[in-house]
């Protein structure tokens, strides 16, 4: 028996997609046109993208974000484990921590850290004002605040791991610590990583609040320039481009990170966009 003739059919026409697509393109053109003819010197925006002050500001934004996020993750894991431990003392401490730092604005926390000298003029014999540099205040303010959110994310991750996993680990003679490190946390990572990526992208942007406490990050770099040259909107656009660049690069990184930790969750790893592209190029076109 020979295979039957392939079916030939006129596909459904999606007129709505064509119309809405055209509308979107038209509005985009109008928007770009409006900005191109607006009172913005784009050459200035472009020029400042690579000016030293701005670049090192972006570097500091990245630095403080990475360090504060790392601090937040460490605190988050510790606090989540404390909350799960069944020990009433650590449980209460963890609850209190989350309650306070999630319950107050991070800008307020930054200002309090920076002005800690008003509460404790000296710490261990050193002047608090000398110790609490803008960098340290920003790191503590952003990191400790982040820890409260990470604690909740990690807690959800730990709770997502099947109970059978800890029973199997226990029946093999593992102690709680070993079980957490080798069995539960690696599996919780799959649930923890996507929201942590969001948290980091948030952190990249929230770190701009540190400009209020004199930390010379990206936004502060821009304001310091435009207060003297008065090219306010041009520099704000420069900053916007830099933030978009940072968050976009990280989004790609996050994609690969999530893929790495989905090992064992599905039978096959999903192909990366590059692999998919290569497959599409080498594959014979479908008729």
């Amino acid at each position, binding site marked *: 028996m020979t295979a039957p003739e392939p079916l030939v059919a006129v596909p459904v026409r999606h007129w709505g997609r064509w119309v809405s697509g055209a509308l979107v393109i038209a509005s985009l053109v109008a928007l770009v046109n409006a900005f191109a003819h607006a009172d913005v010197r784009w050459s200035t925006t472009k020029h400042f993208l690579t000016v030293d002050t701005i670049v090192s500001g972006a570097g500091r934004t990245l630095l403080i974000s990475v360090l504060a996020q790392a601090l937040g993750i460490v605190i988050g894991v510790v606090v989540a484990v404390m909350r799960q431990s069944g020990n009433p003392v650590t449980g209460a401490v963890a609850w209190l921590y989350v309650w306070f730092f999630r319950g107050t604005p991070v800008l307020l926390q930054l200002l309090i850290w920076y002005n800690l000298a008003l509460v404790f003029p000296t710490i261990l014999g050193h002047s608090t004002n000398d110790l609490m540099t803008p960098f340290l205040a920003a790191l503590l303010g952003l990191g400790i605040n982040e820890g409260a959110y990470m604690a909740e994310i990690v807690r959800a991750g730990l709770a997502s791991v099947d109970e*059978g996993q800890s029973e*199997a680990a*226990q*029946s093999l*003679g593992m102690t*709680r610590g070993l079980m957490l490190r080798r*069995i539960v946390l690696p*599996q919780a990572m799959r649930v923890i990583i996507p929201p942590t990526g969001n948290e980091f992208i948030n952190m990249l942007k929230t770190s701009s609040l540190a400009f209020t406490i004199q930390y010379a990050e990206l936004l502060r770099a821009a304001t310091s320039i435009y207060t003297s040259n008065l090219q306010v909107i041009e520099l704000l656009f420069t900053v916007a481009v830099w933030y978009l660049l940072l968050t976009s690069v990280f989004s790609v990184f996050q994609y690969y990170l999530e893929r790495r930790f989905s090992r064992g969750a599905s*039978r096959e790893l999903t192909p990366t966009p590059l692999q998919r592209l290569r497959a599409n190029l080498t594959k014979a076109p479908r008729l």
Partner: protein
Amino acid sequence: MVLAEQVHKHFGKLEVLKGIDLQVERGQVCCLLGPSGSGKSTFLRCINHLERVTAGRLSVDGELVGYREQGEKLYELRETETAAKRAEIGMVFQRFNLFPHMTALGNVVEAPIRVRRQPREQAVARGRALLDRVGLADKVDAYPAQLSGGQQQRVAIARALAMDPKLMLFDEPTSALDPELVGEVLDVMRDLASDGMTMVVVTHEMGFAREVADEVVFIDGGVVVESGPPAQVIDDPVMKRTRDFLRKVR
């Protein structure tokens, strides 16, 4: 090897075990039969202290489970002490509970390396031999999601054996398997039994119980209704409850 005297267990108000008496000698295979909810799985979990006994005495190899007796008093064991005792008891679960982020070999060598602190090469060599023994020599690098249910359960058995347990507990090891995969798991268990492993098996596989068990214990409503050699309990039960149950299972 296992000695239970009037073991009680309740969850809140719900009394699951109402005085279980049972004895398993070294090298024996004991099958626990009974309707679902009868408490047989709970009892099995008490043996390695995954559940805490509420009243009565339960001991493994002459030592109380979960407690130390000094004079007239009982002292609760520390977590590390309980863990050390669990390491000597293998357990196989209904739903396999393999570690999904590790390969078959990774699952098998994890506890020998981390708990027993064996050198990696030694644990890996032993792990390969065990996977070979359960017929999975070609699956050492497969992740659990890439294995069939029967293969996963055989990896789980190899994982438990890697700790050289003196006692193996099986909690309905074939209940989550497709019918055609049950046989391969039972074959491995049969092989273990003939090797002289002491085993306590919660099962609904009457054929396996009749053939392999030295002792069959029928549990219903949290008490032992009837026990004895399979020829007696399965083929010629005295109690009406046992007869009713067996009629439904067949």
